[in-house]
């Protein structure tokens, strides 16, 4: 047949060959050695992952068979088991190479007994036999001269059989669990053999007992082709042996055995033995006794370590010791879920793992990526741990077994369980095929075309497009199933679920809700019932949306309040179809709504008052504070549209209310920090004050029968308002200044200006449909006994007469916000002379310090622990501000950058100008920012204005604050953190402001 192509190009193409002319040439050459095999090749090539590779490897194998007998053996096996041989040659380059190096092992593929039915003892016996160890002996020891390659070859020969059976199977997802079991048994056998080899190298081995406990996938007997094998070692002294030296010997045995598996050698290494799951991780001792293991788990272990323990199983070494370990530790696993925050801890861990994957690979990572294998395992383990405390039928290690147990126990719905099970098998098959090719540990979906094609074919999915489709739908399904399986069964029976879906018993539902952090599980069940009752479309969408919403609400600081708020919002919007549609279609909106409702009552109230704001949650852009220009333009449009004062001011107040919600929501969601949020809140106040002044001027002129007032007028912001640091519930401190036009009557002007100021305050504060802005003019010269509006001239005279340092200090926070531009400029240049003096006398400094000291003891409200007062307490806002203001008073005259009403800007300018040491400034800023964050958070928790300055004491409030501040601290830690920052700040303040000497 030589010289003639045995298969036509068309036939080869149909079988999946990419380069038919080369393949035909290879087949022709193959036919010279194995004519029968070559002739029938095209019948089998369409089934293999990479037919081009298969043909090439086939030819290499033929060329490797030098001896006639060998050729005959190979030919016979190949003819009788063509699927197995071609499957290996085209599915695994690594195993194909193994056959080319060792053609004598091709006949292994003529195995009679399927590897699925081979017992673990048989496999163990084969590997021990290969190294001359007695499989029957209680403590087998290798006798072979060079046992390591012998063991590795024996391992690969059995691996070859497993892979052949797997790769030749038309429905790989069906047999995937069998493959994993067989691989796990093989790994156990390899561990046993490696220990036998180690014993032959550690002469005193008899003094120590050592058991290898398999963890992770090996432990659960769900191993893949190439993976680190996770183990921990338990050791003890043999009877009558010295404990200390026994532990040393055991350590030597463990180290040597690991090297047998994973050190490089003439025959390649098997896989890495990873002992990092042991107590204390890589820093801990390699071997411990049972008591020491148990003590660690009782005292120190973190939540995830219990999850790992779920899969522990004695794999090799001393059987009795292994059993003792399991007996001592297994009960601890099921106590873990009773720890506080167990579910939250576990979820946080999962998120961290996801964040650790290199970004480019994240979406292609079969194991750790979103919707990947780890998600499946995580879902199953979490449910196991939540319900396994009460229900021992859930005490199983394998993911698929556990899923079945959860289904049988009614904890998850039957269809859900089946969908998750098939998703899991599918992902595992992809992983297996990917790894089998080069026998390399890889978990990333390939991007290269040839590799994707190979994977699509190898997994029996068809073309690349089919692979992509399966990958996308499977990972999406896994993600959705996590929420569904966890939360859907919580929906009450009345939610007309299909008969197939799981119905938790009331106890199990309670258990799950409690694990999720709901304090009042019964109330939660009532809300769920109310939300899903009936057959309306609304109830149907709720049933669809709620599982996910529950998950997001449960992550907030106060799940109970969150669910109640969600019910209220839903009730209020029962007739607005967009609401549920938004939640159904936008994961972002739902997640954010859940966070807001369960964390920030202030925002909840605001959202209930203006439900349309909920639509913003879908978009970062909508949640970003609006610029001054944009808001001014909007205000101008409002004012030019109507002459009706009430209508205008109502519209402007509505703008402010809207911006407050925006800032508050963005602040809770971490899109802006509290300092930026405060700026946005100040800006909204500016807009409404500007509008109010314009309307007031217009109204007063109208009443006086004038087209225009005979004076200019401006509003000056003071205090936190001046400093752009307003809180959500702050008053606006203001002063009014006017300047008569030339020739105007001073008294008339004064009367009218007072009217304007009064009208302005009225417009801002009178009850209307939109919330008021409280204004306070008490900081004006002479306080309440001074005139409400003062002329520029009168200000000039006043400041010339009274230049009390504290007045100058108060002016540092002045900022003109509304009114005539020219007047605003004149006013600023007037007060600049006062607040930025050329010289500050020692007397004035002493006066300031005395004043501050007196404020510290007198201004604090009665009954409040000073250290908890964020504004006036030691290290609080006022401490930082007085330091900054002292620097400003002394130096702003010659350092223009200090001339700002904004605290942090002034502080930074002081550092730039070398007036404050950078590290001192950092200490001050840290405390100032923290106090601002905390005050913001307290207001967001719905506390009234008079309470926002005091750090709460109640534990759940502290925890909620910590959640809003969002640095991952517990409530107690948040409290501690504030105390620490305040203490450090106070020390710096005492040095910089009071100029107290630090003494040792």
């Amino acid at each position, binding site marked *: 047949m030589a010289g003639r192509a045995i298969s036509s190009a068309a036939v080869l193409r149909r079988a999946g060959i990419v380069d038919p002319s080369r393949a035909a040439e290879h087949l022709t050459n193959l036919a010279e050695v194995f004519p029968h095999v070559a002739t029938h090749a095209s019948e089998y090539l369409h089934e293999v992952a990479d037919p081009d590779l298969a043909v090439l490897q086939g030819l290499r194998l033929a060329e490797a068979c030098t001896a006639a007998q060998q050729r005959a053996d190979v030919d016979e096996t190949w003819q009788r088991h063509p699927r197995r041989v071609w499957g290996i040659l085209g599915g695994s380059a690594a195993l194909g190479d193994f056959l080319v190096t060792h053609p004598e092992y091709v006949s292994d593929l003529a195995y009679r007994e399927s590897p699925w039915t081979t017992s673990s003892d048989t496999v163990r016996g084969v590997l021990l036999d290969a190294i001359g160890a007695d499989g029957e002996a209680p403590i087998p020891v290798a006798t072979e001269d060079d046992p390591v390659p012998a063991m590795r070859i024996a391992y690969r020969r059995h691996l070859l059989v497993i892979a052949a059976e797997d790769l030749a199977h038309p429905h790989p997802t069906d047999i995937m669990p069998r493959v994993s079991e067989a691989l796990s048994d093989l790994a156990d056998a390899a561990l046993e053999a490696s220990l036998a080899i180690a014993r032959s190298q550690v002469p005193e081995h008899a003094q120590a007992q050592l058991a290898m406990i398999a963890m992770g996938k090996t432990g659960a007997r769900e191993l893949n082709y190439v993976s680190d094998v996770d183990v921990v070692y338990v050791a003890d002294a043999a009877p009558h042996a010295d404990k200390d030296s026994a532990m040393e010997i055991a350590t030597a045995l463990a180290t040597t055995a690991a090297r047998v598996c994973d050190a490089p050698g003439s025959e390649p290494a098997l896989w890495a033995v990873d002992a990092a799951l042991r107590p204390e991780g890589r820093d801990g001792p390699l071997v411990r006794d049972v008591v*020491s293991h148990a003590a660690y788990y009782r005292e120190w272990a973190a939540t995830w370590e219990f999850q790992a323990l779920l899969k522990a199983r004695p794999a090799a070494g001393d059987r009795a010791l292994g059993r003792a370990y399991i007996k001592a530790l297994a009960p601890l696993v099921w106590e873990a879920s009773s720890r506080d925050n167990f579910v939250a801890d576990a979820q946080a861990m999962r998120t961290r793992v996801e964040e650790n994957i290199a970004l480019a690979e994240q979406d292609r990572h079969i194991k750790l990526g979103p919707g990947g294998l780890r998600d499946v395992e995580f879902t199953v383990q979490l449910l196991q741990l939540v319900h396994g405390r009460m229900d021992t039928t859930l005490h199983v290690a394998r993911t698929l077994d556990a899923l079945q147990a959860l289904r049988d126990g009614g904890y998850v719905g039957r269809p859900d369980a089946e969908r998750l099970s098939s998703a899991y098998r599918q992902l595992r098959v992809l992983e297996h095929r990917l790894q089998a090719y080069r026998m390399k540990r890889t978990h990333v979906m390939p991007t290269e075309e040839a590799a994707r094609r190979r994977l699509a074919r190898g997994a029996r999915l068809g073309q690349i497009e089919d692979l992509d489709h399966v990958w996308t739908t499977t990972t999406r399904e896994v993600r959705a199933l996590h929420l569904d399986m966890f939360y859907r069964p919580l929906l009450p029976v009345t939610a007309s679920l299909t008969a197939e879906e799981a119905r938790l018993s009331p106890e199990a539902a309670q258990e799950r809700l409690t694990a999720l952090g709901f304090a009042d599980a019964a109330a939660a069940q009532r809300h769920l019932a109310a939300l899903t009752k009936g057959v309306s479309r609304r109830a149907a969408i709720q049933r669809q949306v709620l599982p996910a919403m529950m998950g997001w609400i449960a992550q907030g600081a106060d799940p109970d309040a969150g669910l109640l708020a969600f019910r209220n919002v839903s009730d209020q919007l029962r007739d607005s179809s967009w609401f549920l549609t938004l939640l159904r279609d936008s994961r972002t909106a739902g997640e954010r709504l859940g966070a807001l409702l369960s964390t920030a009552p202030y925002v909840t109230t605001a959202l209930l008052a203006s439900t349309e704001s909920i639509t913003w949650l879908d978009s970062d852009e909508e949640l970003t504070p609006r610029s001054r220009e944009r808001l001014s333009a909007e205000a101008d449009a409002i004012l030019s549209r109507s002459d009706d004062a009430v209508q205008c001011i109502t519209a402007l107040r509505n703008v402010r209310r809207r911006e407050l919600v925006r800032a508050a929501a963005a602040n809770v969601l971490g899109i802006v920090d509290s300092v930026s949020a405060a700026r946005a809140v100040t800006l909204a106040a500016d807009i409404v004050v500007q509008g109010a002044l314009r309307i007031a001027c217009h109204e007063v002129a109208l009443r006086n029968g004038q087209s225009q007032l005979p004076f200019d007028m401006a509003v000056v912001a003071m205090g936190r308002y001046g400093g752009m640091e307003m809180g959500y519930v702050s008053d606006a401190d203001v002063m009014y200044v006017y300047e008569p036009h030339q020739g105007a009557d001073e008294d008339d002007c004064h009367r009218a200006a007072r009217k304007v100021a009064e009208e302005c305050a009225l417009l801002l504060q009178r009850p209307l449909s939109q919330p008021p802005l409280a204004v306070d003019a008490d900081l004006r010269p002479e306080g309440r006994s001074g005139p409400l509006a003062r002329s520029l001239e009168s200000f000039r005279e006043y400041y010339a007469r009274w230049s009390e340092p504290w007045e100058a200090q108060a002016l540092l926070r002045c900022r003109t916000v509304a009114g005539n531009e020219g007047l605003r400029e004149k006013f600023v240049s007037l007060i600049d002379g006062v607040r930025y003096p050329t010289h500050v006398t020692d007397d004035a400094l002493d006066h300031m310090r005395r004043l501050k000291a007196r404020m510290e003891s007198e201004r604090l409200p009665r009954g409040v622990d000073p*250290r908890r007062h964020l504004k006036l307490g030691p290290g609080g806002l006022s401490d930082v501000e007085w330091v900054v203001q002292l620097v400003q008073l002394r130096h702003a005259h010659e350092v223009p950058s200090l001339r700002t009403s904004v605290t942090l800007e002034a502080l930074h300018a002081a550092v730039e100008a070398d007036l404050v040491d950078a590290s001192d400034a950092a200490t001050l800023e840290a405390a100032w920012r923290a106090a601002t964050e905390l005050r913001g958070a307290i207001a967001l928790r719905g506390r009234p204005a008079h309470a926002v300055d005091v750090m709460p004491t109640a534990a*759940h409030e502290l925890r909620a604050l910590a959640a809003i501040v969002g640095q991952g601290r517990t409530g*107690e830690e948040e*409290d501690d953190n504030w105390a620490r920052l305040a203490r450090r700040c106070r020390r710096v303040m005492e040095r910089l402001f009071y100029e107290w000497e630090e003494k040792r």
Partner: protein
Amino acid sequence: MDKQQEYVLRSVEERDVRFIRLWFSDVLGTLKSVAIAPAELENAFEEGIGFDGSAIEGLTRSFEADMIAVPDPSTFQILPWRGDTQGAARMFCDIKSPSGEPAMADSRNVLKKALDRAAEKGFTFYTHPEVEFYLFEDMSTDTPPVPVDRAGYFDNVPRGTGNNFRREAITTLEAMGISVEFSHHEAGPGQNEIDLRYADALTTADNIMTFRAVVKEVAMAQGVFASFMPKPLGDAPGSGMHTHMSLFEGDRNAFYEAGAELQLSPVARQFMAGLLKHAPEITAITNQYVNSYKRLWGGAEAPSYVCWGHNNRSALVRVPVHKPGKGPSSRIEYRAIDAAVNPYLAFAVMLAAGLKGIDEGYELAAGAEDDVWELSPTERRSLGYEPLPSSLAEAVHVMERSELVAETLGEQVFDYVLRNKRDEWQSYRAQVTSYERERYLPLL
């Protein structure tokens, strides 16, 4: 319900225990106790026992009173002096906030957190205290107390009250699972020392709390009075609590290095350097009372200067004589600490100081060879031996500036201790003593 909890419930049943005392410590190290009936025990394990924390020194922020004590079943012990049947038992508690977070103000939690930080570096902290105390005929505060005997160091006093007492105390302690290593008659009349065996620091601290209670109980039963006051008699040595320390990495003593100078590993040297450097800052914790400074500066082997020495009984830190062939027993001894300490806080700051030395790789200065007390002030200064704070006021002042102590104790405890100790100093300063009257009244 875990196994240990089950074990406790079963023991209570089997031993017919009528009361369970839940023990915890206030910030000063005074033992506090809440008694509950066995019927409440299961609930106590699951939810803890609520109590009014504001009644306990330094336990709560001033406005929040609700606290929860959760018993630690691994510390369950029958109280032997209550008799074998129908007796009482005790457990130590962790204090938590109503939301279940560990309370920042719980001394035990302070130590646990310090141990956690050590564990993150792979270390376990072991301590072994030698507790000294006096036995007096009775408790009289207006006249000097009368010691039960007048023997000296290691004297065996025939039929001495002390011997009976010690036998009884040791039996009781052993019955409570506290191993006692060694006991002998200390240098002062009526003074005793009992050494608690090496254990991890949390267990040791629990044991010290128990030990002090047992000693007082046993003394009372024998009609004498036991006191851990640091310096009860002006002319006799004070009662210290020299504490041996070491770090272990797993089963290996991290302080030991064969062949190194004094068999001390670099870790041990850095630990010691940290302890020495920060010693003045932690003194207000290790020596927390006005009276503590009368022992610290009362001569007679009191370690008043910051230096270390090999088997040097005048140094602040001593490296005990190494026993050949006993490798893993490498340890160092801190000699300032006294028996009236809050052991949880003291162990926490001592550990933190040592770890700081390891973290920052402090260099250890040369050891002191001479008796530091024999040196002239100028000699000491030239050798760089700084004095420890000479009074509570000075110690508080130094501690105020210490980030190390603040971080280790947590802000709440730190602040509380500072305020409490300032108050103590103020009320002490307000005293006019008989010494002053005797000396000044006739003269001035």
